């Protein structure tokens, strides 16, 4: 049987309709289910920092700065380098928050390590306690946030934070700090700093999620928090934290 040009166009048209219908059907049947709405009560956020893994590259500081439009000279996160020579006073540096990393150390024969810092999202936050209007608050999922439409800019919370994590935003004139990338983590993403850490020295954890690897990690490893004596119950945990770190 001879196939005319008309027959070819007809068959081609039918195939095209069939193919597109099939593709649509596949889209409907085989598509990923729509993500469930974020429920604050089901999360309790924190972070694990493995000091042994941090290489002081400053990627986290840059990523945070870009993601959150942090003004120059202020830091939602920064990295400190400790160089400890025996019993001497440790040499601590954080040039411009380590946004460009660190220069080479002066001497090699010392104990040296990097300590990434950020808001500890404390359970008993002194900053939350002292805010005169409640503009600083802890969210139901455990993130300490600032309502910038409500903050007076009195800076009492900056004085009350033992970790130096807050600053007055020079343009907004309200207090600013790490939000644990709340806009990302509530969308199922990790924080900008964790995402950009090349060694996974920083890992976002959900202490309420039974599947989160943090539970297994805490069973097998010793961790510390900064200034435990302040009784603020930080949710940022450090592995291999040296006694010299303040």
């Amino acid at each position: 049987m001879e196939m005319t040009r008309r027959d070819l166009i007809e068959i081609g048209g039918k195939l095209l309709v069939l193919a597109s219908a099939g593709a649509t059907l596949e889209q409907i049947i085989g598509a990923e289910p729509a993500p469930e709405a974020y429920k604050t009560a089901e999360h309790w956020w924190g972070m694990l920092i493995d000091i042994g893994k941090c290489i002081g590259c400053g990627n986290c500081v840059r990523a945070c700065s870009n993601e959150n439009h942090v003004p120059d000279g202020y830091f939602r996160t920064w990295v400190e380098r400790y160089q400890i020579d025996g019993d001497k006073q440790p040499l601590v540096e954080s040039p411009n928050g380590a946004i460009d990393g660190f220069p080479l150390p002066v001497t090699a024969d010392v104990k040296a390590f990097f300590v990434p810092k950020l808001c500890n999202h404390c359970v008993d936050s002194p900053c939350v306690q002292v805010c005169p209007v409640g503009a600083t608050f802890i969210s139901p999922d455990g993130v300490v946030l600032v309502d910038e439409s409500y903050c007076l800019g009195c800076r009492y919370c900056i004085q009350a934070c033992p970790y130096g994590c807050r600053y007055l935003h020079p343009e907004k004139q309200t207090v600013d700090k790490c939000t644990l990338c709340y806009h990302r983590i509530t969308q199922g993403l990790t924080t900008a700093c964790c995402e950009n850490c090349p060694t996974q020295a920083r890992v976002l954890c959900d202490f309420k999620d039974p599947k989160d690897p943090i539970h297994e990690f805490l069973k097998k490893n010793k961790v510390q928090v900064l200034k435990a004596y302040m009784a603020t119950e930080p949710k940022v945990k450090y592995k291999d934290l040296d006694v010299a770190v303040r």
Partner: protein
Amino acid sequence: MHGVDGFMYPNEVELQWSVLIVLYPYITGLVAGAFILASLERVFNVEAVRPTYRLALLTALAFLLVAPLPLQLHLGHPERSLEMYLTPHTSSAMAMFGFVYLWYLTVVLLLEIWLEFRADIVRMSKTTTGMQRLLYKALTLGSDNVSPAARIIDDKVGYTVTVIGIPSAFLLHGYVGFIFGSIKANPWWSTPLMPIVFLFSAMVSGIAAVMVLYAVCMKARKTVIDMHCMDTIARYLFYTFVIDFTLEMLDLIHRTYEADESFHSLNFMVHTRLWTSHIIVQILFGTLAPLLMLAATQLIRFREGVRRALYLTSGGLILVGIFAMRWNVVIGGQLFSKSFLGYTSYKLDFVTREGLISAGLLMLLPFAILAALLKVLPPWSQPISNASSAD
């Protein structure tokens, strides 16, 4: 980094609380101290200080009206300050400021001043003319009954207000001390002694201020200074100052003996960045020198002119010394890192919102208000009821 020694957390380099926050405890301290001096006469019947009673009340009011201004000027969003009244955060020490302030201003000070001056206001509403008459008429608040029976009621209510006013004055300034003393993150501030040290230093500064103001006013009016009054004020000033000094020394000894992890950092700071303001101005010239002068007047019977000079010199030094104390608390508490590994410095701006000019104007404003108050409510004439009761 310029102005930084050692390591500061990056966000700590810039000081958050400026000279305006130094003025806040200084001014509220003068208010509380002036009121306590006034209450000596009213509640404790120390008749010798009567010539300063009304002046002390007006001084307290003039300074109280200015007290919130440094805070207001310091806020990043001053237009939101009303939120502290509307939606106060009950766990915050600072949230209570508005309520403590309003209580003290309206329930204590304005009421007591009105009751004290009511008879004079009524009299002047009848003897003056034009705008003055309208002003005094308004100040009577519609109450022009100054009969002996009405004045007795005024006196009783005034006494009750003063009795309530004494703990209120303690609350006002003890509370300011608590704002600093309750910050556990800052070892320079965090001590339960802070409210009580603030309170006694407030009494010292307020009493000294009224003593100096009284002498200056008498000089300006070419009136004889009541030396019995000055002697009595100086005696109370000395006693209060001894307690204040003891408390501050107790704090110092406790810190030195306990020597916790912050001690080396704070010790270094006192010996370097705070040496002039703390050791020289506050302790040497602002505390030891006036204490010795006042002690000398208690032990030796000097001639009147010498006593007057000693009182005024010590009063002036005390006012400078207590200002230095506030400076050392507020500014000093921000000069060291909470890591205890470094120190920053404070550069006082000149013409900025939180600069020297603003601070200077805010310090002059209470004196301008006081001058106006002295004009409207001259404190020199005795109230009718007291004059009659003294007869």
